[in-house]
């Protein structure tokens, strides 16, 4: 595995040198990362990047199959329009995680910021997934059109809110699973609570297991019954906005 010390390297040079390295060795370790943007942009299947430090905005933008594991926190717009691949973050995350994400999986150990999963979408077999260990800010799943978000809400203090306001505003596809009770006023009017079916239970169990494996956490105490599922009230709410069709 090739090691690159990223301290003081300008983001363009850093990303160029990653492009260069993967021609010979597809596994790379970046250390001392401080805010360099676009790490992993568009990278294909087979590439594996481990990151120590705080990668900058738009990490894994347009990523196309690569895997990134971050030992630290990440900033805004991680997984922006990501196509496929996997991201594991041993830490917290800023705003707009998984912005317009089209496929692939993202696992965040801790809390996430505002507008997570905004404009996520799915098409046939491509179904993006975001799993969050902690809590989420306002506008979770805003304008969501597909894929799934799982909010585990682990280890929260009593006064901490699982999710902020305006959850699922404008949603017209996809699913949000939340562990714990959330007041109704926090949701947008386009989203509603629906019951968990067998498929949901299998899906949740599988990804909870993966979360506990990635972050070496014992989650046997988690009860599937305490999860609620939320989905769009109407699959095509804007169809008649400008003309009846």
């Amino acid at each position, binding site marked *: 595995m090739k090691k690159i010390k990223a301290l003081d390297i300008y983001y363009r040079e850093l990303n160029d040198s990653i492009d260069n390295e993967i021609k010979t060795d597809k596994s790379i370790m970046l250390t001392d*990362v401080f*805010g360099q943007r676009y790490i992993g942009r568009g990278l294909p299947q087979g590439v594996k990047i481990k990151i120590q430090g705080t990668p*900058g905005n738009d990490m894994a933008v347009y990523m196309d199959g690569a895997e990134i594991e971050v030992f630290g*926190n990440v*900033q805004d717009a991680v997984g922006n329009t990501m196509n496929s691949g996997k991201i594991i973050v041993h830490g917290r995350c*800023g705003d707009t995680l998984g912005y317009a994400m089209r496929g692939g999986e993202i696992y965040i150990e801790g809390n996430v*910021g505002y507008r997570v999963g905004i404009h996520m979408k799915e098409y046939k077999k491509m179904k993006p997934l975001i799993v969050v260990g902690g809590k989420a800010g*306002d506008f979770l799943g805003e304008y969501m059109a597909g894929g799934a978000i799982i909010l585990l809400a682990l280890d929260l203090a009593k006064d901490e809110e699982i999710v902020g306001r305006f959850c699922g505003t404008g949603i017209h596809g996809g699913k949000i699973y939340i562990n714990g009770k959330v007041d109704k*006023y926090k949701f947008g009017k386009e989203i509603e609570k629906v019951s968990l079916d067998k498929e949901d239970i299998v899906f949740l169990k599988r990804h909870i297991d993966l979360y506990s494996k990635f972050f070496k956490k014992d989650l046997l105490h988690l009860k599937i019954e305490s999860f609620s599922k939320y989905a769009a009230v109407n699959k095509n709410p804007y169809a008649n906005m400008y003309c009846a069709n």
Partner: protein
Amino acid sequence: MLKEGESRIPSGCAISGIIDKKGKRFNGEEIIKSIALMHERSNGLGGGFAAYGIYPQYKELYSFHIFYDNLSIKTQVEDFLAKHFEIESAGNIPTKSVPNIEDQPLIWRYFVYPKIYMSKKEVIDEDEFTFRCVIKINREYKGAYIFSSGKNMGAFKGVGYPEDIGEFFMLDRYEAYMWTAHGRFPTNTPGWWGGAHPFTMLNWSVVHNGEISSYDANRHFVEMFGYKCTLQTDTEVITYLFDLLIRKHKMPMDKALKAVASPFWDDIERESKEIQNELKSIRIVYSSALINGPFSIILGCQKGMIALNDRIKLRSMVIAEKGDRTYVASEESAIRIICDNPDRVWSPRGGEAVIALLEGENK
């Protein structure tokens, strides 16, 4: 070179701030390093710093930092200053030549004491007297601009990337207990020396990432109280709003914050009757002080630092604490580059102010 509006460089402003709550002073190297890390968020058309605690030898005096376009306006302004203030000391603000910083105005500094007896018509205090003089000069003396007017604090700003501006003003030679910084990406107005952040009035300073869509409503409101927005930029009005609410109307800081980033009506409805009444009163009386639009700001004052996002958090902001220090920045990496292993890192919610004051001060 393409003029503003003819080219577009995608970017967004950067802000950063550090306070030592015990009041221990440190030089400008760390804040420069922090703001420089977010180079990508600026475009070289504005950078600046506010530093608190830098003039302990003159802490009873107002320090004016002034840009002059030419010597003739300098003479006129100095005539005015001599009439209205005892000038304890005057001189150039020391700068050094830095490759990317050019076309600088004349940059002068004065330590002054107001001749308050000059005000014959009404009884006003020193702050109000000084405030009126600053507004008068910025409004009526074309080619002169007082960009800093507080006590024991100062703003340093100009056209350029913030790290170059910091080097230009040699901020490694100043020691402050609190620093804020800004890297600018002007979106609506030309980049000029006076238009860089921070914007200050007396001891207030504001650095701001975002855009104030309520600018005109806010401007009309403050102008009813004698303020004059002279800089064609939205951040200026935020500074005046805080000066008006806290200095003139004597609102407690936490209440003033509820006026500029007030809770939504339906959130208010879920509060207890008592809190409802208070929040409703603030929203009604100060409806024109509500700041709308995407913003994250760091407000500096003598007591300390306040960081605030718009209510639906359309700009990013991260806070960290370590020991006696509180850090604020647009990006977490800009904190970590100057602070190993912070005790705590978090993003406050939209509209939720983070208040980091000097020990012994209250909100």
